[in-house]
C-alpha cells in the first residue's frame, strides 16, 4: 500500500509542478503583451 501511495504522490507532484510551470510561462507572456500594448498606446 505504501508503494502505491508513493506513486500517487509522485504523480500528484508532477501534475502540480506542470501546472505551476504553465502558470509561470503564462504570467511572463501576459506581462510581455502588456508591455507591448503599453508601448503601442504611447
Amino acid at each position, binding site marked *: 500500500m505504501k508503494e502505491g501511495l508513493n506513486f*500517487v*504522490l509522485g504523480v500528484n*507532484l508532477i501534475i*502540480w509542478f506542470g501546472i*505551476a510551470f504553465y*502558470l509561470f510561462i503564462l*504570467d511572463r507572456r501576459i506581462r510581455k503583451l502588456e508591455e507591448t*500594448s503599453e508601448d503601442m498606446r504611447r
Partner: protein
Amino acid sequence: MIIKVLLSIWMAVIISAAFLYAGAAAGFPGQTSRILFFHVPQAWIATLSFLLSMIASCMYLARRSVKTDHLALSAAELGLLFCILATATGSIFARATWGSFWNWDPRQTSIVILLMIYGAYFALRSAVPDPEKRRVFAAVYSILAFVTVPFLVFVVPRITASLHPEDTMNPAKPGMDPKTLKVFLGSLLAYTGLFVWMLRLKIRLLRLEGRQEPEFVISEKLKQEGEKG
C-alpha cells in the same frame, strides 16, 4: 514573483503532507479519505468564485465599470473550472467507496444542476453581441445564479439522505484528527492562493483583449485627439 514561488513550494509541501504526514481516516476503504485535501478545497474555491462573481456583478450594475465585469467573468470561469474538478474528484471517491462513478446521489445531482446553471452563464454571454447589453444581462444572471448556490451546495444535500460523508470529513465538527486538520487548512490556503493567482492572470488577459475591441480603440483615439486639440 516571490509569493508565486512560495505558493508553488507550499502546494508541493501540502501534497507531500497529504500522503506522508496525515493518516488515513478510519471508516473509509484504504487511503480514500486523503481525497479530502484536494476535493474539499476545490469545492470551497468554486463556492468562493461564484460569490465573488455575484459581488462583482452587483458592483458592475452599480458602477458600469468594465473592470468589475472582467472580475465577474473571471471568477465565474474559475468557479466552473473548480466545480468540474470537485465533481471529477468526487466521482473517483464515489467509485472507490460507493461502487460506481455516478450514483445520482443528492450531492452529485445538485452539483450537476449548479454546473448547468453556470454553463448557461457562458452561453448567455456568447449569445449577446452588443458588449454593453452582454455585460448587463450577464451581471443580472450571475446574481440570480448565485441565489441557487447556498441551496444546491449546503441545503439540498443535507435535507435528503446522502452517501456523502459529513461527520468525519467536516472540520467544523469535532473528531477530525489534528494532523489531518493541519494539512486540510494548509490545503485550503494553498488552493486560495492558486485561485488568486489564476484570477489575476485571467483578468489581465481580459484587459488585454479589451484593448483590441473597437469601442476601446475609438475612445483612446478620441482621448488622444482631445489632448492634441
